[in-house]
């Protein structure tokens, strides 16, 4: 029976959402981890001069987001590890592009569920009477960062599924590859929040983020099929 991309995608996304909702720990634990991290950063950094507060807020928030997202991403294939579902699915006549897009969608949904509280809580605990740190542009930058990181996350999760010491190997591969995203997100946000306008420098950093997204989503689509191909 010939499988269609859209049908496989819909089925796998539906199945993924059901699996996540059945085990809410997988959704809640990265958020709790992130909130704990923000607290730890606050304790370690302590009181800072108002001039440094913006930089600290952005560094804390985006670092915490990166750590928490890494946890979510690395576990995206966990439900498929049970009962060798992943190996069986590789042999089924499902569209591998649809499979990647389904996992990518799941990771985006998990990412949004994780990032939202982090951005809100980060701005909440770092605000001052004279400065509100919440900005929709920063939310947009975070969303752009998520788009590329999600593709990278799915690829790395599929690659390391059968590896030993996966828990340490995944972050060791993920963080260096994600460095441009961290730099671009923090720099673009800092420049925008500092000046209140979208300067050419902000645009340049956003361009880099967009480039990263395009490259990694394209690579994800191309390489995932090679990774799971049975032949």
């Amino acid at each position: 029976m010939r499988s269609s991309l859209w049908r496989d995608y819909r089925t796998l996304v539906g199945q993924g959402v059901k699996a996540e909702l059945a085990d809410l720990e997988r959704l809640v634990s990265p958020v709790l981890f992130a909130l704990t991290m923000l607290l730890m950063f606050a304790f370690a950094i302590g009181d800072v001069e108002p001039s440094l507060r913006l930089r600290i807020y952005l560094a804390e928030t985006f670092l915490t987001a990166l750590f928490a997202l890494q946890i979510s991403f690395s576990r995206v294939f966990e439900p498929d590890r049970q009962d060798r579902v992943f190996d069986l699915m590789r042999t089924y006549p499902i569209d591998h592009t649809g499979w990647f897009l389904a996992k990518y969608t799941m990771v985006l949904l998990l990412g949004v569920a994780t990032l939202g509280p982090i951005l809100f809580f980060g701005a909440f605990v770092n605000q001052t009477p004279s400065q509100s740190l919440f900005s929709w542009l920063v939310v947009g930058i975070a969303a752009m960062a998520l788009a590329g990181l999600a593709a990278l996350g799915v690829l790395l999760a599929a690659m390391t599924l059968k590896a030993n010491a996966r828990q340490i190997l995944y972050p060791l591969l993920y963080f260096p590859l994600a460095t441009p995203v961290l730099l671009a997100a923090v720099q673009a946000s800092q420049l925008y929040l500092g000046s209140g306008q979208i300067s050419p420098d902000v645009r340049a950093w956003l361009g880099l983020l967009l480039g990263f997204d395009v490259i990694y989503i394209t690579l994800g689509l191309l390489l995932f099929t090679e990774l799971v191909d049975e032949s």
Partner: protein
Amino acid sequence: MFTPEDRRELFLGALFLMLVACHWFAAFFYAPVDEHQGEVYRIMFLHVPSAITAFASSAALAVFSTLGLKQRSESSLALAKATAEVGLLFTLLTLATGSIWGRPTWGTWWTWDARLTTTFLLALLYSGYLLLYSAMPAGPGRVRACAVLGILIFADVPIIYKSVTWWRTLHQPPSMLRAGGPTMDPEILWTLVVGIATLCLYASWLIRFRSGNIRLADNLEAASFEQLHS
């Protein structure tokens, strides 16, 4: 205990090593003294070729990884693994020589200069590749996973470089490849270009020799397994 083929390879390696040695001689006795940095600038003739070799290795890694994906062969993986090892060697050499050069030039052993930072990240990526290789059981799964990572590393290097360069820089602006021609003394430039060529040649030989060892190790494992069960 070497075969005639091994001896030919070793002879080639010795020849390339001699070329490197001749280049180092030229770096000290042919290239003139730099008017700003004095004699210490001669570290450049080791540092820059190492850096270029390290980054060229990432391109070679991508090529071997792509071949590995297409052919699904262990020999492509052996070449890729050897490339990652040699790449790591040259990134570490770049970082060490950059640090040593930085001390008398910038007054500090380390600074978050764009190129050094990118090299540091590249060293982490090569290390990650080697960790993935050793963490996975041998077989087509490992060939595929390592091949994908090799391609990802190569794709990320220019993005990392661009982002870190925009982030901060203390390094000289690129003086070799620049519109209007290089700003270097021709003797210094040619010594540098020869250095890059000789080191890349030697690195290619190292990759070839090391990948031969990796394949030999696989053959050895197969032979001892066969003997055990015969």
